[in-house]
């Protein structure tokens, strides 16, 4: 259950303001691709175009093509709701449903997909929580509210919720930025395990994290404030961090700007 993403000529707008311009890249299946770049260069915007979450913002729209294997997500007639069921997302701030128990949080996506049988739900909830390395911590309080967990646990709950529906791709927007180092490590380990099954894209401001978890790294930048963000280069992570082909990438990674 992992698909290749092939983006070509993609631009995204907020109203009439262009936030990212002409991005083309390929994301390999069963691998982790990291997005790095200075704040405001459009990493989140780009990530959200990959599961058609960009367009839920009023007046926002997208131009270009995103191919998931051989299906264009932006072809007319494609239902964005169906896209979001195949391309899961984890947000920067943990956002479990506050009115739901831990169990119901994980089961939410499954129920949306029409799964009703208690036995099936139980199995998949357990599997997903185990997959998110959270099972041991919560197995005795599945009926307690999800909002009662610690931040790191909540983020892993959100990951469990996202992987429960077995998406093809998992998008993560700075999933560790609100977490302590230990929870961060837990989630990085988890990402390492999840890439066996999913295509993973992760936005991060943490260079070490990008180096640790990703196979490939994409560097985004903007020419000047007010200009749209662009993809500068994408390559093997090792290469980006040792010998990038563009000077700006090296400057950014070594902390000379941004």
């Amino acid at each position: 259950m992992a698909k290749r993403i092939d983006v070509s000529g993609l631009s995204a707008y907020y109203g009439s303001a262009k936030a990212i311009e002409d991005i083309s890249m390929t994301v390999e299946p069963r691998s982790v691709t990291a997005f790095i770049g200075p704040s405001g260069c459009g990493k989140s915007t780009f990530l959200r175009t990959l599961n058609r979450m960009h367009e839920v913002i009023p007046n926002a729209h997208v131009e270009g093509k995103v191919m998931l294997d051989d299906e264009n997500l932006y072809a007319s007639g494609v239902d964005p709701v169906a896209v979001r069921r195949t391309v899961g997302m984890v947000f920067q701030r943990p956002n479990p449903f506050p009115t739901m128990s831990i169990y119901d949080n994980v089961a939410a996506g499954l129920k949306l997909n029409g799964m009703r049988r208690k036995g099936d739900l139980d199995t998949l909830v357990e599997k997903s929580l185990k997959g998110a390395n959270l099972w041991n911590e919560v197995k005795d309080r599945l009926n307690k509210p999800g909002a009662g967990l610690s931040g790191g646990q909540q983020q892993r709950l959100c990951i469990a919720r996202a992987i429960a529906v077995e998406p093809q791709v998992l998008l993560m927007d700075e999933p560790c930025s609100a977490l302590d180092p230990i929870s961060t490590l837990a989630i990085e380990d988890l990402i390492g395990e999840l890439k066996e099954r999913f295509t993973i894209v992760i936005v991060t401001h943490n260079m070490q994290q990008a180096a640790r978890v990703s196979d490939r790294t994409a560097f985004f930048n903007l020419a000047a404030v007010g200009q749209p963000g662009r993809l500068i280069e994408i390559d093997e992570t090792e290469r980006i961090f040792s010998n990038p082909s563009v000077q700006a990438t090296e400057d950014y990674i070594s902390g000379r700007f941004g």
Partner: protein
Amino acid sequence: MEISRSAPTQAKAVVPPESGPPNLRQTPVEPPAPQNKGKVRLGDRLFSGASRGSGILLLVIMAAIAAFLTYRAVGAIADDHGNFLTTKEWNANATPPVFGIAVLATGTVISAVIAMVIAVPIAVGVALFISHYAPRKLAQPLAYLVDLLAAVPSIVYGLWGALFLVPHLQGTTQWLDSFFAWTYVFDASQPEVTPRSLFTVGILLAIMILPIVTNVSREVFLQVPRMHEEAALALGATRWEVIRISVLPFGRSGVISASMLGLGRALGETMAVATVLSPSAILSLHILDPGGGTIAQNIASGFGEASPFGRDALIASGLVLFVITLVVNGAARLIIARRKEYSGANA
């Protein structure tokens, strides 16, 4: 959740070992702020004095009103020659006075229930439409319109009810009677009579409380944090599923509060009910039959020509209305509090 709940208990548990007078224990906590001490303290003291003073004043005024009303009411009830709770008719000006709130209290509750059953679902629907479905160009004027409706004086609704609603509900009444008479409540004994009934009153009240319930609900729905809605969207929820998963659970307690505001208005509505209803002392659950009454309507129509004793009796009925309101509000608060740990508040 658990931490915040156990924190106060722990704080209390610490008290016995120290066992000093409370002000002694607080001394070390006082932050040393030598420079601007005088300035800040004066402002603080003025403000806390003013707020405490007005708080106390308010309580005193309320207590005085309550004491006065209770005194008059108890006197009236003591001289009642019928049973105040079970007597159906209201003859407080007669000698000997015989009056009770059986019909009035029932009618108050019935008409308010009808109003709520009709108004709350519609209000929630309209609020959701304005907050989550309507395009912005439509949502703004719509919200404004609903605001305007909330400001229409109740006598206007009353006149409209009497002149327009009552004659136009005749057909509905007959239709309900011919198809739903088996439900007992919709069994009309004289379907051909003009429907100046509790049912009509309930519908009028529903229309009257619709704007306020809609507006408050809409405000609540707009408060739902973006990230909760996006959580549902990212799972592949349709617009309706987002509402079901994120918006409604988050807005639940707010909608209950909004409904309580509406209910308060429905319970206490005087002029509109008095204009529409033809009151009688018949206690009946056939809501399509003309007759019955509500406490507020009875006060409105009886206060003018009431004897001094009759006024005291009306005050007694007003206290009953107050108790009803209090009970309903308490129940709503219980509902809100029961699942508090699941509310959006601690997200």
